[in-house]
């Protein structure tokens, strides 16, 4: 089961869960994914130890997609 999580004030919130073979669940996840990108979040997927990539389309096969806010110099 794949998960779309958003890091927020609760620690993190699971916005969607899906299996690649469930079109309805995938579509719901895609909608949730796009809505969060529209709100200014960046989506990240781990691509191995110490590696992560930004994604702008929901990677359906990814196990975990994490939404983060932009960082700024302090």
């Amino acid at each position: 089961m794949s998960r779309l999580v958003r890091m927020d004030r609760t620690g993190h919130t699971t916005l969607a869960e899906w299996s690649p073979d469930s079109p309805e669940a995938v579509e719901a996840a895609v909608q949730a994914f796009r809505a969060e990108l529209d709100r200014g979040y960046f989506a990240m997927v781990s691509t191995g130890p110490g590696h992560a990539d930004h994604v702008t389309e929901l990677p359906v096969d990814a196990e975990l997609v994490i939404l983060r806010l932009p960082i700024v110099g302090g």
Partner: protein
Amino acid sequence: MSAQALPETAAVPWRTRVDGARLRQRGALWTATTAAHVVPFVAAGVLLVVLQPLAAAVTVIAFAHAWVIPELYAARGANVLRPVRRDPRAATAHTTALGLLADLVDHAARDRLATTGLVVEPGRLGTWVVGERGAVLLRGRRAFCYCVGVPDPTLPPADRTAHLLLALRADEQGFATVANLAFAGARWRVRRRLAPAMRPALRIP
């Protein structure tokens, strides 16, 4: 680390992308600045005591200035690893966030996170020590302290670290470009300004 450019770099187009050469340049500049602060005080102190031994007290004050100024800079650098104030009402959120952060790192880093509260992440530019308010890049004996964060005061502390860690993993050079350099100098200067529990994180070879 990924080859993708960090999207946040678009917000700072005037900044030169940080690489090894740029770090060497910034490090040398910090050393020169420190010397410019320290040498006049030391020289004045020595000159005073040579010309007038009774002015030894003034010499001591001059030497103290020469010591304190680099220490103040180092303290500013160490601040990037100081934890943010904990909100007791958000303890559950912090625990939840800590679980996600622990899932992002390997066993050794997880153990270090548990004892120091910091994530140690190897990179191409050096070894990064990531905290809640920023990160320190360790290159040889030098530490580059970067102040960087997420402008959302409601985020639990561990989520702040996770934000920085993910951004760092996506684009290490972009991360260093977006962040503000608070201090560059001897690693020991930064380490001694940290809480004892955090110091082992800066002892990475």
